[in-house]
């Protein structure tokens, strides 16, 4: 049991469209959304644009329908690597420090999934992402989405799969229960399909958070600097060492 999440809302240049997208997601019942910035990998050093600041988007976050809490907005970076010599699925699953591996739906997959690297990825906590908004737009994409998804399911047996929208416009996003039903078409069981929109998304978000911690157990928090007046009350040897 976890709240419903949509981890792929495409960030365009238009803030107003993004705002409409997030409000629509809150209206449909998603409690967590992640704004996705997509970047093509280039050989030379590249500047990655700054992510959209949530305070810029909304002064007050929209309330999720059916709850009393506001929606939670995260940001996410996706890197597309087109050159297979740099990095292919095998490498991504086993070595790269990533949280999600996105399965392309715009074309038929040129390779078959193999069980060993997928199992390694599942053990490491890496999730596989399927998107459904291309399937809404075009019937050829629909066929590719379903066939690629079924290929993946045969190997990974429905574990660590998340389904998200990749929506650019408010009309491309669907409600969480509808997306769970779509998961049935992709080959997931009923409970796995519902987990694909809730529990597995939570696991992917936590996996991302643990990258800042030591083994997922110890985290550091910045301590607020004490003011000068408080310092005088403690003897010199007991003052915390702080960098100037």
């Amino acid at each position, binding site marked *: *049991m976890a709240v*419903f999440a949509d981890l792929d809302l495409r960030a365009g240049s238009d803030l107003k469209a993004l705002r409409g997208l997030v409000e629509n997601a809150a209206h449909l019942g998603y409690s967590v959304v992640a704004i996705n910035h997509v970047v093509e990998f280039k050989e030379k050093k590249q500047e990655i644009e700054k992510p959209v600041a949530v305070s810029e988007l909304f002064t007050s976050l929209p309330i999720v329908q059916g709850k*009393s809490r506001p929606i939670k907005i995260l940001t996410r970076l996706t890197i597309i690597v087109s050159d297979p010599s740099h990095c292919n699925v095998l490498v991504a699953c086993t070595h790269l420090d990533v949280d999600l591996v996105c399965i392309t739906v715009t074309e038929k997959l040129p390779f078959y999934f193999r069980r060993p690297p997928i199992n390694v990825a599942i053990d490491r906590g890496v999730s596989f992402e399927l998107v459904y908004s291309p399937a809404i737009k075009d019937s050829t994409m629909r066929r590719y989405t379903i066939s690629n998804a079924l290929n993946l399911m045969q190997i990974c047996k429905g574990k660590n799969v998340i389904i998200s929208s990749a929506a650019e416009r408010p009309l491309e996003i669907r409600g969480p229960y509808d997306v769970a039903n779509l998961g049935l078409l992709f080959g997931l*069981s009923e409970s796995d399909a519902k987990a694909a929109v809730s529990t597995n998304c939570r696991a992917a978000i936590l996996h991302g958070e643990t990258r800042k911690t030591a083994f997922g157990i110890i985290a550091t928090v910045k301590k607020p600097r004490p003011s000068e007046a408080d310092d005088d009350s403690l003897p010199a040897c007991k003052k915390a060492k702080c960098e100037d």
Partner: protein
Amino acid sequence: MATLRRLREVPRHLLVCEKSNFGHDKSRHRHLVETHYHNYRVSFLIPECGILSKELKNLVMETGPYYFVKNLPLHELITHEFINTFVKKVFSLEPFVCHCVSASLRIPPSLCSCCALTYNTNIDEDNTAALLPNGKLILSLDKDTYEETGLQGHPSRYSGRKIMKFVVSIDLMDLSCNLDSKKYKRISWSFKEKKPLKFDFLLAWHHTGAEESAMMSYFSSYRIQEHQPKIAVSTMTDLQCPVLQSSELGGKPEVACGAWELLDWLGAVFSDVELNNEPNNFISTYCCPQPSTVVAKAYLCTITGFILPEKICLLLEQLCRYFDEPKLAPWVTLSVQGFADSPVSWREKEHGFRKGGEHLYNFVIFNNQDYWLQMAVGANDDCPP
């Protein structure tokens, strides 16, 4: 292929039908109504009836207020004062009175039962809390909250591949007997300091011989509002009704319809759907089960709110008495629907939400005091009792 097979399957649901008579000693009707605590909608349908009798009308109007409190911390529900005022039933002192004292000194028991349920929380996504009239506080918590509260509970039966939902059950009657116990101290510490949880609550209180506005004054420091249940009334004309025979629960071809056909038909009537199976009807091609008769008029009343089981008992008794005088109607129905986001269905049986969170029951009361009882639950539910 497994996917195709799965796509053809219907979500799991259970329907239990039984028949009995109200006069039987072992009839379970009272017990089943009283143990279904969180009732959202009560509807009754009386065929061949245009106006409601005075007694029924009064009962409908008096389904009692319910209260809505915003941001109530959970530790308020375990205070000694709350338990004594609203939860504890004060038993009659009769056993302690010496047998030589005359019966005129018998002290009537003051009975009360309090029911509470969190509002705006989804049972399959968020933490939910419910207070049952028997004094049990049930918490349905997600994994993170359960680990943070540090209370003892058990994993939910419908949790899926990874255990993500836990149920904690706290017996308030047991706690209030011994306020210095380690258990009470731990629960109090958990609710006040370790993980203070706050919810919006719907509350209802059944009491005899106590102040009317005790609940409003008790929670006056929080934003408490009193609400009256919404009542919707409609009279239908020329309604196709199935023919039923009280002895034939399963129906008899050409003679009477079965219990599940009646439930389907009742659903169609409540949704205000055409029963004619017209080919150009976009919404529904449902048609009334055969054999059926056409009834000149029928009275449908729906009460929506947070309704206590005691009020439903009174309504059921009054509907049984409907047939004390001869009436044209062969039967009347009383349907009760529970809250989709309640953590329990009957007694303390777990209730969950997969694609739908229905847990409902329906009485069909015949003119010879026979009745049919249908209880239906959805996918993530234990079997009805």
